[in-house]
């Protein structure tokens, strides 16, 4: 007996956010249904993988990453170029680790110089995130924003207690913003409203619902993302933003990824990424080039662009 599939038709859709300013610019978002359910709606922009690089050598990264990336990790400009030319990255995510008080404490002007060099040489759109220390980030991120004015970077990370400086600077320099909430859909919605109240276009916000690795609470993130997406499709404009997830940085912290050989680490990153794609992830920031390659292939297959 043929089964009639129950198909949903939603009124809402996810906003489209463009990153970059030239012909290499990319877009995320635009979905009109839950991930990959093409019987019910469209995904005009496929999810994207960004490779993560840091502006100084990440000496504490696990062996699996070090052997994959080798000496290029010592020179951020080379590292960026290699990500694009050898690993095929269409977007880069640069973490300003050097400015962190526990790191080399690079002065702001030198940090900004490095960002500009990396951006100029890589030739692809960029996500730039601070070190995670609010004080130093509030000083350096506006300077980075200004130096890259007009380039339409995706800048992060704004939180509910610390969003004003970053929002003001993105507004002034024409960048998009990452709004982070602690696995809490109510705070996610509230932060989007607060940022919008400052005159920032809500359609240029990308949500970070917080990322957790497989085995460390990934399901909670999944459920928050699902709830937010469903609300967006029912018309809630304050949750209609695309999602960014920092898969690489969360996965490669956990012992299951670090301590049991490269193959397991790669699988851990791949599995986390696949799950978060199924939850609605639009931009996945990954570390291991092999994991990124596998996920890109997965996206191609799921989008119907190539056979399984």
């Amino acid at each position, binding site marked *: 007996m043929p089964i009639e599939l129950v198909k949903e038709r939603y009124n809402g859709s996810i906003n489209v956010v463009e990153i970059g300013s030239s012909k290499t610019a990319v877009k995320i978002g635009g979905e009109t249904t839950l991930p990959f359910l093409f019987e019910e709606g469209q995904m005009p922009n496929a999810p994207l993988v960004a490779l993560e690089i840091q502006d100084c050598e990440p000496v504490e990264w696990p062996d699996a990453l070090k052997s994959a990336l080798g000496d290029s990790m010592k020179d951020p400009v080379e590292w960026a170029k290699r990500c694009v030319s050898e690993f095929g990255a269409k977007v880069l995510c640069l973490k300003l680790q050097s400015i962190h008080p526990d790191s080399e404490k690079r002065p702001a002007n030198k940090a900004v110089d490095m960002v500009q060099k990396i951006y100029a040489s890589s030739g692809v759109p960029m996500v730039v995130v601070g070190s995670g220390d609010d004080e130093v980030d509030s000083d350096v991120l506006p300077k980075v924003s200004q130096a890259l004015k007009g380039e339409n970077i995706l800048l992060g990370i704004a939180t509910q207690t610390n969003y004003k400086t970053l929002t003001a600077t993105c507004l002034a320099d024409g960048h998009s913003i990452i709004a982070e909430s602690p696995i809490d*859909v109510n*705070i996610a*919605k*509230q932060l989007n*409203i607060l940022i919008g109240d400052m005159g920032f276009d809500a359609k240029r916000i990308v949500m970070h619902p917080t990322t957790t690795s497989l085995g460390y609470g990934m399901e909670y993130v999944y459920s928050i993302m699902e709830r*937010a997406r469903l609300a967006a499709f029912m018309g809630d*404009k*304050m949750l209609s933003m695309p999602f960014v997830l920092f898969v690489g940085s969360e996965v490669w912290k956990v012992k299951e990824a670090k301590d049991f050989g490269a193959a397991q680490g790669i699988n851990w990153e791949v599995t986390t990424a696949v799950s978060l794609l199924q939850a609605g992830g639009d931009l996945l920031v990954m570390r291991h080039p092999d994991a990124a390659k596998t996920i890109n292939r997965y996206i191609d297959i799921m989008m119907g662009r190539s056979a399984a």
Partner: protein
Amino acid sequence: MIVIGELINGMYKDVGKAIVNKEIDVIQHLAVDQVNAGSSVLDVNTGPYSKNPKDDMKWLIESIQKVTDVPLALDSTKPDVIEEGLKIVKKRAIINSTSADNEKMEKIFTLAKSYNAQVIGLTMNRSGVPNSREMRLELAAAIVAKAVEFGLNPDDLFIDPIVLPVNVAQPQAIEVLESIREFRLLSDPAPNTVVGLSNVSQGTKFRSLVNRTFLTMAVANGLTAAILDPLDKELIDAMVTAELILNKNIYCDSFLDAYRKR
């Protein structure tokens, strides 16, 4: 819930005067204010004293459509006045209203079909206003059946269970609330439900309190639309909060402001 702003009605002194003197800014301010307060539809009524309701309806709609493009509910007892409005509306209109009398329904549903409009159906007829949920349900079923006969979709109907003032028809309030719930079982897809909210407090004290309490109870019974005064902030706040409690929108600390910004 669909908020239908009720303030552009010639029975209000300021609107009546504006219609006579063609004071377009009065009408346009009312339109914009109601939309900003959360109305997704605006009710348009030339009022009982209009000497030229067809012309006045035309003028009101033209004035409103210059400043907002929300859909309009064309409020008149006369089908020719409604048709005058249907000819010039830019968005899909709601015809306000028909009773459950066959002759009236035939006229109104014909208009609705030709102009692709939605319709508010009142569960009352020549015999008068119903005094029980059973009577309301019977009339509602008749309206839905007739509409379907005319090729209209049940979910393009808004069935009104006739809200009566709580001081003079107190037992009816609970009948209305039950009817709202029961109407949704009449068809699949279900018809919408609507109330003329202000009627519940006609002639009572503490009108705002009565209105917002009744609205909250109606929302809990599944009401999908209401004709009300959107400039009553506490009323809209109560409605938004009722919907929050029914898990219709995700909570955030600014949930009251978020409604106005959506």
